[in-house]
C-alpha cells in the first residue's frame, strides 16, 4: 500500500474518528479474527508518517550582518567569566566593572557564551559591543532595534550609526574642537533622533555654549519631548535669551541677602528652607530647586562674581550644598573645589540630596570630581557603605589613583563593624573600584579575609587582570 493512499484515505478517518468516518473497507486487512483492522491501519499510517521527510522551506530569512570590530575575550577567560557571572554576587558592582573593562579594552564576550551570561548582557549591552547588543535586543520587534554598528574610530560620516553613549562622547569632543561644526553635525541628524537621543545629545551642547547656538536652541522650544524643551530653555536662559528662567526666580525667592562686617561690608547670602524641609528632605528639596539653574545665572542674578558668590555663601551649609550641586551639574570643577573648601562634608550632603547623575562629564572630569569630594575625608574615611556605593555608581569608572590610595591606606576593611556580614559587599565594591596599578595592594588586604568572603573579589581581580593582559598582548 502506498503512503499516498494512506495519507489520502486513512488519515482523514483516523483524525476525525472511525465511528464517524469509517476506514475504506477495501484497504482493511485484519491480522486476526479479534481485530477489525483499525489498529493495523493505525500502525501502518504511523510508520508511513514516520518515513515522511520533514518539511524543508524553499527560502530562509537573511540574517543581519553585524560587524563587530572588537576582539573576542581570550579563551582562557571564558570559563572563569561565566563561572563568576553565574555565581552569586552580593552587589552589582563586579558586573559594572566587568562591563566597563569590556568597553574600555574594546573586547566582547564570545558569541557562544551570550546565553550563559544573558542577564549580564541585557544589563550592560551598550558596553559589550554590537553583537552582544543585538543579542540583548533579540526579543524586540525589528522596527524597534537599532543599527548595530560600533567602529573603532568615529568620524562625521559614521557617527550617527554608533551607539548613543559613544555619539554623545564624540559630539562633546567635537564641541571642544569646533563648537559650530559640532552643532551643525547635530542639526543634520536631529530630525531622525528619538527623544532619549535628542535629550542626551543636546546635553553635549553645554560644552562651549555660546551665542551662535541660539538659533538652533530657539527651534527646540516646540520639541515634542518636554525634557528637550526644558533643556533648550535652560540653555537659552544661560545665553540671556528666551524668557526668564522660572527655576532661577524660585531660587532667588529663597535666598536671603544681608550684609556683615564692621569696617568692610560684605554681602552674606543665606538659603531659607521651607518649614517642612528638614534634614534629608532639605537636601532633596535643594537638589530639586537648583536643578535647572546654572552657576553663571545664579551669580548674575545676585550681582556677584562666581567666586564672590561662594564667599558670600560660606557660612550657610544649605546654600553651599546648592552651589556644589550646581557646580557639578555645570561641570565647573574649579568652583566645586572652592565650595568644598567651605563644605567639607559635601560628599555626604550630595549623597543625601539624591543626586543620581553627574551629567556628561568625561572620565577625567569624573575622576577629578571624586578627588575633590573625597579629599576632605582623607584623615577619616566614612565607613557607610552607601556612600561608597553611590560614589562608584556616579563615577562609573575605576576610582582615581589618589582616592584609592586614601582608601587603601585607611585600611577601611579592618574598621568595619560586624565583619562577617558587612564584608562581601565591601570587598566586591573595592575590587570593582580599584584601578589596575593598585590591585596588588588590594590583594594584600584581601588576603586577611576568609576565602569564602574574599573569593568573589579575588576572582574579579583575576578576570580584570586577565582581560588587560590579554588586550596588551593583542
Amino acid at each position: 500500500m502506498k503512503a499516498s493512499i494512506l495519507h489520502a484515505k486513512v488519515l482523514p478517518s483516523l483524525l476525525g474518528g472511525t465511528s464517524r468516518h469509517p476506514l475504506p473497507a477495501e484497504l482493511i486487512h485484519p491480522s486476526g479474527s479479534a481485530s477489525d483492522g483499525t489498529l493495523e491501519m493505525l500502525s501502518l499510517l504511523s510508520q508511513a508518517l514516520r518515513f515522511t521527510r520533514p518539511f524543508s522551506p524553499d527560502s530562509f530569512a537573511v540574517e543581519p550582518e553585524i560587524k563587530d570590530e572588537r576582539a573576542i575575550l581570550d579563551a582562557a577567560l571564558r570559563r572563569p567569566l561565566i563561572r563568576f557571572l553565574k555565581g552569586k554576587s552580593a552587589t552589582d558592582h563586579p558586573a559594572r566593572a566587568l562591563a566597563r573593562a569590556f568597553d574600555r579594552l574594546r573586547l566582547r564576550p564570545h558569541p557562544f557564551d551570550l546565553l550563559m551570561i544573558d542577564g549580564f548582557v541585557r544589563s550592560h549591552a551598550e558596553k559589550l559591543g554590537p553583537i552582544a547588543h543585538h543579542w540583548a535586543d533579540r526579543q524586540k520587534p525589528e522596527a524597534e532595534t537599532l543599527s548595530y554598528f560600533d567602529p573603532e574610530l568615529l568620524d562625521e560620516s559614521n557617527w550617527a550609526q554608533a551607539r548613543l553613549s559613544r555619539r554623545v562622547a564624540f559630539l562633546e569632543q567635537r564641541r571642544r574642537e569646533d563648537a559650530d561644526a559640532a552643532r551643525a553635525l547635530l542639526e543634520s541628524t536631529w530630525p531622525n533622533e528619538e527623544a532619549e537621543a535628542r535629550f542626551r545629545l543636546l546635553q553635549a551642547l553645554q560644552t562651549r555654549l555660546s551665542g551662535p547656538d541660539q538659533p538652533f536652541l530657539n527651534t527646540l522650544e516646540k520639541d515634542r519631548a518636554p525634557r528637550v524643551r526644558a533643556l533648550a530653555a535652560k540653555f537659552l536662559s544661560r545665553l540671556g535669551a528666551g524668557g526668564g528662567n522660572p527655576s532661577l526666580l524660585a531660587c532667588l525667592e529663597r535666598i536671603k541677602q544681608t550684609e556683615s562686617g564692621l569696617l568692610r561690608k560684605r554681602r552674606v547670602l543665606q538659603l531659607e528652607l521651607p518649614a517642612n524641609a528638614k534634614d534629608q528632605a532639605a537636601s532633596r528639596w535643594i537638589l530639586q530647586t537648583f536643578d535647572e539653574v546654572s552657576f553663571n545665572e545664579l551669580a548674575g542674578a545676585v550681582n556677584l562674581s562666581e567666586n564672590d558668590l561662594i564667599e558670600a555663601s560660606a557660612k550657610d551649609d544649605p546654600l553651599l550644598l546648592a552651589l556644589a550641586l550646581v557646580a557639578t551639574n555645570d561641570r565647573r570643577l574649579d568652583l566645586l573645589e572652592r565650595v568644598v573648601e567651605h563644605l567639607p562634608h559635601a560628599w555626604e550632603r550630595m549623597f543625601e540630596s539624591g543626586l543620581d547623575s553627574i551629567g556628561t562629564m568625561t572620565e577625567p572630569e569624573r575622576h577629578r570630581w571624586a578627588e575633590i569630594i573625597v579629599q576632605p575625608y582623607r584623615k577619616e574615611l566614612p565607613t557607610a557603605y552607601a556612600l561608597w556605593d553611590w560614589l562608584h555608581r556616579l563615577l562609573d569608572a575605576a576610582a582615581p589613583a589618589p582616592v584609592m590610595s586614601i582608601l587603601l591606606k585607611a585600611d577601611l576593611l579592618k574598621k568595619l563593624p560586624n565583619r562577617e556580614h558587612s564584608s562581601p559587599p565591601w570587598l566586591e565594591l573595592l575590587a570593582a573600584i580599584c584601578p589596575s596599578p593598585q590591585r596588588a595592594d588590594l590583594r594584600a588586604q584581601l588576603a586577611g579575609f576568609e576565602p569564602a568572603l574574599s573569593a568573589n573579589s579575588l576572582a574579579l581581580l583575576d578576570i580584570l587582570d586577565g582581560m588587560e593582559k590579554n588586550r596588551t598582548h593583542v
Partner: protein
Amino acid sequence: MPLSLDRIEALAPDQSSLAAARKLLKPASWPTLAEGEGLIWGECQGSGATPYRVAVNEADAGYKCTCPSRKFPCKHTLALMWMRVDRPTTFAPAPVPEWVKDWLSRRRGSSATPVKPRDESKPKSKASIHLTQTTETETVADAKAEQRAAAAHERARLEREAAVLAGLEDLDVWLLDQAQHGMANFVVQAAQSCRTISQRLVDSKASGLAGRLDALPTRLFTLPDPVRPTAAIRELGQIYLISQAYRRAAEIPPLLAADAKQAVGWSVTRETLLGDSDALRVDAEWRVFAVISEAQADRLRRVETWLWRESGTDQSPSCALLVDFVPLAGGATTGGYLVGDHVEAEMCFYPSAIPLRAQIATLKKGATQSSEPLKMPVGTLSACYAQYEEALATLPWLGTFPLTFRSATLRRTGSQLFIHEENGLSLPIASSQSNEVLPLASVGHVDGIGLWNSYEFTLAWAETSLGRWVRA
C-alpha cells in the same frame, strides 16, 4: 577521571551548594585529609560532635558523605573535591581506612563505573559505614532452597507474563476507542485519557509502555498545535506495534523481540547484561558529545550521556548511550561525564536490533577533557538521515537517533530555525534551543552532531570558525 573545577561545577546541585562548599575550603575544618588507591577521603568538622566522613572515588567522581544533607553531592563532598583540585598536596598518602573500604564494597556503581565481580568468599558488609566490625557469616548453599527460589522466580515470571498480556488486551481496546473517537479529539483530552490507561498498564506490570503513554501528552504539547493529531497517530501506532511485536515475539527476529520486551517493561539489569557473554561489546575510544537530563514523573531524573565512537571498525555501533537515574530531590543533573570528555572503554550494548543503549563493561582510561575536534564521518546530513531511515525500517519504534552533518548552515524562517544543507535536507531545530543556537546563525558553515527524535533536531555539538559550540 581527573577532578576539575568544571566537573565539580557540573556535579553541584546548585550554586548555593558551591557557595557553602567554598566556606569549607579551610584545612582547619578538616582534621583528616588523605588519599590512596585512587580515592580521597576526609573528616569534616560540622556542627555535631563527630565529624562527617566523606569519601570520593577519583576514577568516576563517585562519593559518599555521612552528613544528613538531602543534596547530592553535599557541600562536604564538593569541598573535598575542590580542595583536591586547589591544593592536592594537603592530602596525605595513607592506607584506605575500613569505612572507605566498606563503602566501596557496597557500591553498585553508575553506568560510568565498571562492575567488579563480587568476591563471594568475603563476608557481606554492614549497612552503615560507621560500623566496620567483621561478622562471621558462612552460608552453605541449600540446594532445596535454591530450587524453591528458582520455582518461585519462574512462577512470578509467568504471573507477570499473564498480567502483561492482559494489560495489552486492555491497551488494544483503549487504542481502538481512540481511533473511533478520532485523534483530533484524543489530543484535547490526552492527559486524562493517557493517565487512565497508563495506570492500568502499571498494574499489569507493563511499566515501559505505561511510561511511554504517561509521557505522551507532554510530548504532544511541546509540538505546534496543527501537527499534534498526526503526531498522536505516530505515537499510538508505535505503541500498537510494540504490543504486537511483544505478543508475536516468536515470529520476529530475536533482537527485535528483545527490543519489544524492553519497550514493554522487562528490564535487563546491569549485572545480567554484563554477565551475558552474547552481548555485543565494543572496545574503543569514545567522546561524550551530549549530556541530556530530564525530570520524570516518578521523581527521578533521567540522565542520558551520549558517546561517539572515535576508533575501531565501521561495522560496530558508532554511538553509545549511557542512561542513569538520579533522585530529583538531590538536585544532581549530570551522570559524572562532561561534554568533551574522552573515554577509553569497552561498552556492552543492550540486546537490540539497533544497539544504542550500553553499559561500560571495562573502563580502560578515565575521562579526560579534550579540545580536539570530534572525529565524525565525512557523510552529509542527507546520507546520515538515510541511515536513520534504514534503522527505522529495522526498528519501527526507534527513538532518538544521532545524526552527524558536514558543512551545514543554521537558517531561519520566522521563528523556526533549521539546520540546513545546501541542496539537501533541512531539519527543524528543537524549539527549546532557539535562543541557544542563535549565535551559530552568523558563523557560516559548521560540522556537527545532534539528536533527531523524528520531530525536531537537538543540536549537541558543532565545530565552527569560532571554535567548538556545545549544548548548554
